[in-house]
């Protein structure tokens, strides 16, 4: 029982944070679609979960969680979780995957749209009962659909269903859980940044002769965000372990994590807006990227409501086992 990230896990997170600070500053969100991708690739980021025989580092989801959280904290755009996490589970033998030399778009069962599909060299499509299809980006017809997040555009994907589907329901289920957990970790990062920015603004913005952060209505709401994030994070960490161990409760644990992280991020976004007032509502302030990310990732890979329903269904089947 050592429920704390190891020094190695934290060091990986710190390295990614440093890279993103340098190469994914807020300004990059206005101009670049895949900032810091090459730098992360140099670090071996896209091979972290791949086994050594596929040029990866053979790490588990738990090991990379602090690093994934940093990608959320920095609001890093691009199909990062898709390439580094989803593809590692769904299609680990993709050439150049470990080196970051291939950019992957992923569509999981039940999902309507693929994020960042226009950037993808390869599309991996897992539809219920159809196994996994891997196709080159140019073979798909992409139709942009409106979304909430300017840095995470969505696309409808159509293609000729040729005969290349591989079976792999287990892999798909595992990938879906891993993606939910990784997205949850990003949401925790987004929520932490929203909180930090809001706290910082509440400390300097003055009304009625005092910093607004000295008013209980403002400070107690920020405290509530801190509490929500503080207690969502351990669910995410547990879910990563649960997925790594393929625990019997892994599906439910992943859902609990995604729901709690999504709700914490949505709360953080709402409170960030309320704390900032009108200025938070503007396109000029960088805050809007984190707001949009909180909303887009809350909806991505299952809404909080859908994951709550999954948890409830599992409990209703009287599976009250806990991990650990």
């Amino acid at each position, binding site marked *: 029982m050592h429920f704390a990230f190891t020094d190695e896990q934290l060091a990986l997170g710190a390295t990614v944070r440093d890279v993103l600070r340098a190469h994914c500053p807020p300004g990059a969100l206005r101009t670049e679609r895949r900032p810091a991708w090459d730098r992360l690739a140099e670090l071996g980021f896209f091979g972290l979960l791949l086994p050594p025989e596929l040029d990866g580092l053979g790490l588990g989801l738990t090991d990379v969680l602090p690093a994934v959280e940093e990608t959320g904290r920095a609001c890093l755009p691009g199909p990062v979780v898709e390439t580094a996490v989803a593809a590692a589970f769904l299609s680990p033998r993709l050439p150049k995957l470990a080196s970051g030399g291939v950019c992957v778009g992923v569509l999981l069962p039940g999902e309507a*749209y693929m994020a960042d599909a226009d950037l993808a060299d390869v599309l991996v499509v897992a539809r219920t009962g159809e196994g996994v299809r891997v196709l080159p980006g140019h073979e798909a017809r992409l139709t942009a659909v409106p979304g909430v997040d300017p840095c995470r555009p969505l696309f409808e994907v159509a293609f000729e269903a040729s005969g290349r589907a591989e079976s792999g329901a287990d892999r798909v289920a595992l990938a879906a859980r891993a993606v939910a957990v990784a997205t949850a970790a990003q949401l925790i990062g987004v929520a932490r940044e929203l909180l930090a920015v809001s706290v910082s603004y509440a400390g300097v913005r003055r009304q009625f002769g005092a910093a607004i952060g000295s008013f209980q209505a403002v400070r107690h709401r920020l405290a509530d965000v801190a509490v929500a994030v503080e207690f969502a994070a351990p669910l995410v960490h547990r879910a990563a372990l649960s997925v790594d161990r393929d625990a019997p409760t892994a599906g439910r644990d992943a859902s609990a994590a995604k729901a709690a992280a999504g709700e914490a991020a949505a709360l953080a976004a709402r409170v960030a807006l309320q704390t900032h*007032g009108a200025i938070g509502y503007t396109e000029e302030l960088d805050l809007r990227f984190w707001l949009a990310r909180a909303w887009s990732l809350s909806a991505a890979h299952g809404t909080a409501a859908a994951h709550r329903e999954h948890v409830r269904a599992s409990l209703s089947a009287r599976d009250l086992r806990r991990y650990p």
Partner: protein
Amino acid sequence: MDLDFSPAELDFRAEVRDWLAAHVPERLPPMDTGEGFQAHRDWEALLAGERLSVVSWPREYGGRAASLIEWLIFEEEYWAAGAPARVSQNGIFLLAPSLMRFGTPEQRRRWLPRMATAEDVWAQAWSEPEAGSDLAALTARAERADGGWLLYGHKTWSSRAAHASHGFGLFRTSGARHKGLTYFLFPLDDVAVRPIAQLDGLPGFAELHFDGVFAPDSMVLGEPGDGWRIAMSTTSSERGLTLRSPGRFLATADRLLDLALDADPALADRAARCWTAAEAYRLHTFATARRIMAGAEIGAAASMGKVFWSELDLRMHELAMELLGDRAGGTAWLDGFLFSLAGPIYAGTNEIQRNIIAERVLGLPR
């Protein structure tokens, strides 16, 4: 006590419903684009042709002298029909009540008919960079000039100003915190307007820079120094009721049920709660309208309505986001969600409203 509509009210409802069914356009382009702004003005003009843009105004200004109850009926039908957002709303809901009450006959004749037809579109100019919730801290000022005033300073978060023709707001004419404020009307022609894009990328806000803009005495509403009282007293009469009528929340709630009733019962339950809450707001408003029609002021109780509708609107749209997930993009629900997030902020943040409730409704110490 009764809740029966009169035959005349029922006829009015039927007339409005029929007219809207025949005339409501397909979704217009967003009103904060140039094209959309014009399309929304055209729609206002069409409404005005039927005396439907400002039903509660006297006929001489373009209305029908409708009662508050009829106005509420109009609003229910308007939003149920899915009719466009009101590009004139800052003028007709924020400025017009003040003009009616504090304006000179000349001011009313000059401005109200053109507002009713959207020939003039008015932008509000309350906030300043350092004066938001603490509005009385504002520093934009007016200096006496021959036959009028010169306006100086910097307003911001001015809704609609990117395309509007006129603005209204408070300027400091002396140092007294509240009694030094004067209510001005001004054309936007000589004001430097910098549009500010909102979360949806469209310039729903603007900054206004005044560098000696001339406003003749005829553009002062009420007496110099009376601005705070005018702005606030409007708040505590009709505006508390008219800012957001129940009709729009009833319509949202009905649409939310369409989305939710066949979904997870836990979500359907949240939708049903919202639907009932929208009914509560409607009923509460009928009671308030009755009191206003009997000559009462709403006073601080308007703050309770603001808190209630803004948080209801947020709950409804948050639920819709949960129900739609990735499919929310491009829907009216997403626009509505972003707008609902602003509800607890604009027209006095909900923190300010709760302070008002605590102090002026409950009598708690400051």
